[in-house]
């Protein structure tokens, strides 16, 4: 961790253009402050902001006397003659540190449309008291945007003493003022403000309706907080009037249901049985919060009467309740004729279900042909709690199923990663249904290890279907890879070779020997390359060509020189080239010897091209010497040029002369 942070902190230290906010500074004198304030007062865009930075930094110093001096400086910036930008800076800072000292100057700024905004920026953070008096006093004489600004700030400061001032303004001819006053009263929301809101004419201007709605909602909240539920309820019920916009009725209903929990259930049922479709989702969404013990049963009974989308929402709400009645209803919904409802039920049961869901899911799987739906059921089954008990339930369901459903359940068991999964998968891998067996082997390829190796080999040697055998071979190879001791790998395969009866099985086992990777496996392969059965010899050559590392070199070279066919020779050549290519990371004399041996053994230009492709990656001066003569062979000229260029470039730093000579030769060719 330290090494990761070091460069970062070093960069903080060395960058000359940056200024640390926390850098300490010496305490300024009065003259220092006066100088900076004077500079700040003339600030205009384009100039250095250094005076502002300096003042801000001093303001953070822990000295109350210094703070007073600086505040006086900020107040000075508010006076005429300083730029607007300086005043804006001063107001921002006074909003953080300002005291009563600054109030007269801020009060002065309230009179102008241009500066009322920044004055309120500062005043809004002042403690209650004198700042409120100043704001109230400014309302009668202010006009235009300044007046709106002041009223807004009074509202944000929740100044109860302003209600008498604001109430008459709700009828102001200037609708902006009236609107601001109504909203401010809503924010204050005390008894007097509430009465002023309630007293507003029902036929108020349409332009004011949204403000009245907001103020009413705020008052209802305040009544709720004051434990005056009766008043709050009356306010909310007034907002349920059909003439009001949908969003207002929705908001009021939601609040009412939260407020009046005793009546909420009945209220929600009335909404569901009513004709106002816009309110139904609000009622359904609140089912989850009902305290009543029988609420799930009551609303589950409503499911058949709801539209498909409403059923989806109801299932979501019932799932949040997750009691017995809710679970039963959601389980039943798996059989819904509506795909969306089934899907919601599947997802919900995945969240809240348990072992008991398995038979329901199994039935749903058996009846579903939709790929996405089946995948959703599988996802739900994978995360279903219950551990081994749920695993056993899935196994029981699996035994009563067939085909694609059985295959899917097999994969599900594997994905649940239970302790008995591999045992079950091995049993299923022996099933006669190819789809089931294939699924089991695929799952085993992700989970099988040394414990499963011998059973897998048994299954592999008995597999009759080519596709199944291929999957079995793949799974067994993975199990071999997870078997740490190479001797255990090859001994297991060798034992299987003893009991394997069909040629196909023997071929599959030969294909596993490279994965074993030890001497015993190599010897077994070498022996198989000279056996009597043509197919087995060919399989052994194929496997040998796949040998994983350079330890197979001598054996492969021997087979190369005495091939059973030209095709086998070609396979081994490709294998040898692969091996030297993989050794390029360690270019040494031994590697060069291998390349030399290969070039000597090449029987065609095709072989040479193959070898040159790998040789180019050998960063060794002698590799260059091997490649250069081939520039004269027109059949492989292009590949030789590429190899020479690549080698020369790679060794240029260590062997400049050899590289330069080689590159020059390329130019002269």
């Amino acid at each position, binding site marked *: 961790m330290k090494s990761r942070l070091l460069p970062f902190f070093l960069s903080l230290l060395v960058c000359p253009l940056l200024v640390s*906010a*926390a850098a300490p500074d010496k305490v300024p004198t009065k003259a220092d402050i006066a100088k900076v304030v004077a500079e700040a007062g003339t600030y205009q865009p384009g100039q250095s902001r250094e005076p502002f930075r300096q003042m801000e930094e001093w303001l953070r110093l822990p000295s109350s006397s210094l703070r007073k001096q600086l505040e006086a400086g900020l107040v000075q910036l508010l006076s005429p003659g300083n730029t607007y*930008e300086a005043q804006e800076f001063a107001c921002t800072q006074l909003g953080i540190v300002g005291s009563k000292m600054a109030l007269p100057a801020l009060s002065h700024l309230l009179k102008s449309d241009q500066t009322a905004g920044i004055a309120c920026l500062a005043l*809004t953070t002042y403690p209650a008291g004198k700042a409120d008096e100043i704001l109230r006093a400014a309302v009668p004489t202010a006009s235009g945007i300044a007046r*709106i600004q002041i009223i*807004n700030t009074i509202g944000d400061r929740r100044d109860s003493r302003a209600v008498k001032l604001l109430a008459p303004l709700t009828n102001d001819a200037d609708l902006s003022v009236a609107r601001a006053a109504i909203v401010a009263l809503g924010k204050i929301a005390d008894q007097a403000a509430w009465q002023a809101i309630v007293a507003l004419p029902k036929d108020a201007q349409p332009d004011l309706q949204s403000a009245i709605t907001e103020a009413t909602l705020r008052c209802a909240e305040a009544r709720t907080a004051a434990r005056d539920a009766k008043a709050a309820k009356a306010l909310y019920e007034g907002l349920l009037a059909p003439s009001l916009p949908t969003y207002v009725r929705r908001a009021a209903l939601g609040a009412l249901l939260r407020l009046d929990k005793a009546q909420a259930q009945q209220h929600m049922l009335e909404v569901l049985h009513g004709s106002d479709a816009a309110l139904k989702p609000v009622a359904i969404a609140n089912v989850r919060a009902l305290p009543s013990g029988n609420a799930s049963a009551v609303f589950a009974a409503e499911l058949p009467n709801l539209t498909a989308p409403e059923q989806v929402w109801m299932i979501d709400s019932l799932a949040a309740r997750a*009691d017995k009645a809710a679970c039963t209803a959601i389980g039943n919904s798996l059989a819904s004729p509506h795909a969306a409802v089934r899907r919601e039920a599947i997802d919900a049961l995945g969240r809240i279900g348990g072992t*008991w869901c398995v038979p329901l899911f199994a039935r749903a799987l058996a009846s579903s042909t939709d790929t996405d739906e089946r995948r959703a059921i599988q996802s739900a089954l994978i995360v279903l709690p219950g551990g081994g008990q749920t695993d056993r339930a899935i196994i029981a369901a699996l035994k009563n199923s067939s085909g694609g459903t059985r295959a899917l359940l097999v994969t599900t068991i594997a994905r649940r990663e239970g302790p008995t999964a591999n045992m079950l998968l091995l049993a299923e891998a022996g099933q006669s249904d190819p789809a089931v067996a294939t699924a089991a082997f695929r799952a085993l390829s992700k989970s099988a290890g040394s414990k499963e190796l011998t059973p897998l080999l048994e299954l592999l040697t008995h597999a009759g279907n080519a596709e199944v055998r291929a999957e079995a071979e793949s799974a067994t190879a993975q199990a071999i890879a997870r078997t740490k001791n190479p001797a255990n790998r090859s001994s297991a395969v060798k034992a299987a070779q003893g009991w394997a009866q069909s040629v196909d099985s023997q071929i599959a086992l030969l294909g596993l020997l490279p994965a074993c990777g030890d001497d015993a496996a190599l010897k077994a392969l070498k022996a198989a390359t000279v056996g009597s059965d043509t197919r087995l010899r060919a399989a052994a050559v194929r496997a040998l060509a796949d040998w994983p590392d350079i330890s197979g070199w001598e054996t492969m070279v021997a087979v190369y020189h005495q091939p059973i066919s030209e095709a086998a020779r070609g396979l081994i050549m490709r294998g040898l080239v692969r091996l030297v290519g993989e050794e390029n990371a360690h270019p040494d004399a031994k590697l060069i010897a291998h390349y030399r041996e290969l070039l000597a053994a090449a029987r065609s230009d095709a072989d040479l091209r193959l070898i040159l492709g790998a040789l180019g990656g050998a960063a060794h001066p002698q590799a260059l010497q091997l490649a250069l003569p081939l520039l004269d062979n027109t059949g492989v000229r292009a590949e030789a040029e590429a190899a020479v260029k690549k080698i020369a470039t790679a060794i240029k730093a260590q062997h400049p002369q050899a590289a330069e000579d080689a590159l020059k030769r390329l130019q002269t060719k």
Partner: protein
Amino acid sequence: MKPQAAPALSRRQFLKRATTAAALPLIVPGSVLGLNGAVAPSNRIGFGAIGVGNRALDTLPTFLSFPDIQYVAVSDFRADRLKNAKAKVDAKYGNQDCADYPDFREMLASKDVDAVAIATGNRWHGLGSMYAARAGKDIYCEKPVTLTIGEGRKLVDTCRRFGTIYQAGTQRRSTASYGFAMEMVRQGRIGRLHTVEMQVWEGPGIPHDKVAPVPKGWDYDKWLGQSPWYPFVPARVNSWQYFWDTAEGIMTDMGEHYTDQMQWALDTDNTGPVEFEAQGVFPDPAKFCSDTPITGVGHCKYANGVTGVMYQRGAFKDRYIRYIGDQGWIQVDDETDTVTAEPKSILSLKGTSTAGWGDASAHVRNLLNCIRSRTPTICNPEVAHRAITICQAWTLSMRLGRKLKWDPVKERFDAEEANRMLYREPRAPWRC
């Protein structure tokens, strides 16, 4: 078999029981809802855009790809952007029906608009959301969702008051890589989580610039919105992210994505840390007019002892989040959407989904489902507010040069100066 009464499960209990990398929050695909084909106009959700600059145009194609969305209007205070956005929407639908409004308030009065997508400058995110909520519109809003902590609380209250369905543009909650990392942390795969490390990139310094005439087609006063009035200075306007009046710099601008993830992994969506400390390096005021940090580091501590660290350093492509436990770690590199972990075996549990944060489809589907069902989205106002609060508290700590203790219930600091910075009064006529 009869169902057994299932005990109520907490989200944490549920996740702990999952034995494999479970899916992301279960989102019913549109196809299941019958929305992949033609959708009756009456069943479409009418969308309007507030702010149609670069970010809006990034996400517009995703919104337009949903058959149950009809983009009916766009608004912007800049005429050039407005014209461009209308042309894009009209081109999608092959008509000229998309209404264009130079003032979003007129758009909000339209009954054709059910929901809005807000992708303005930061100063308009919270305020624009509140205007939309008061007009009865549901909301998708880009992060950072507010300018101040106080504005955030007002946003939460306003959305609750009006029953608004709101979703923040913190799409990483709907992204497979981040969901996977979160689940691995919650399942204890890295042991006991003790540190969450996050990184955003180094910010610029914006050179000084002079006052210039407001370009034709700009309603500059409205563009400024709630911010204190200031003369039109091109550098300030074009790089508004780096000025305190209009934003709070990179840590806040981008940091919310990662603090949101931290909150999610810690299951602290309705609360937050209790302590903040941050240091920053600000631009040289002699050379630059921007006043937000170039580099910095913020620390926070939760009541359970978990520490969050946010670095502002390095290049844009180097951003990440890393959860560190006492038995390992897991990291998501944001640029590549790559998950790495130690022990590496954790990675074998990862699903096959390759959809990164650039694909916001799952996020938008969550929003649309919630608009119909009137249930909270995965990034509802409280979640978003709590996530941005962390970044905002860091910027306050940085500016005040001191450690701050925080009461996440009362939402107050232990320092009066910091409390006075919780909220900025909007410039009239705008209001919260």
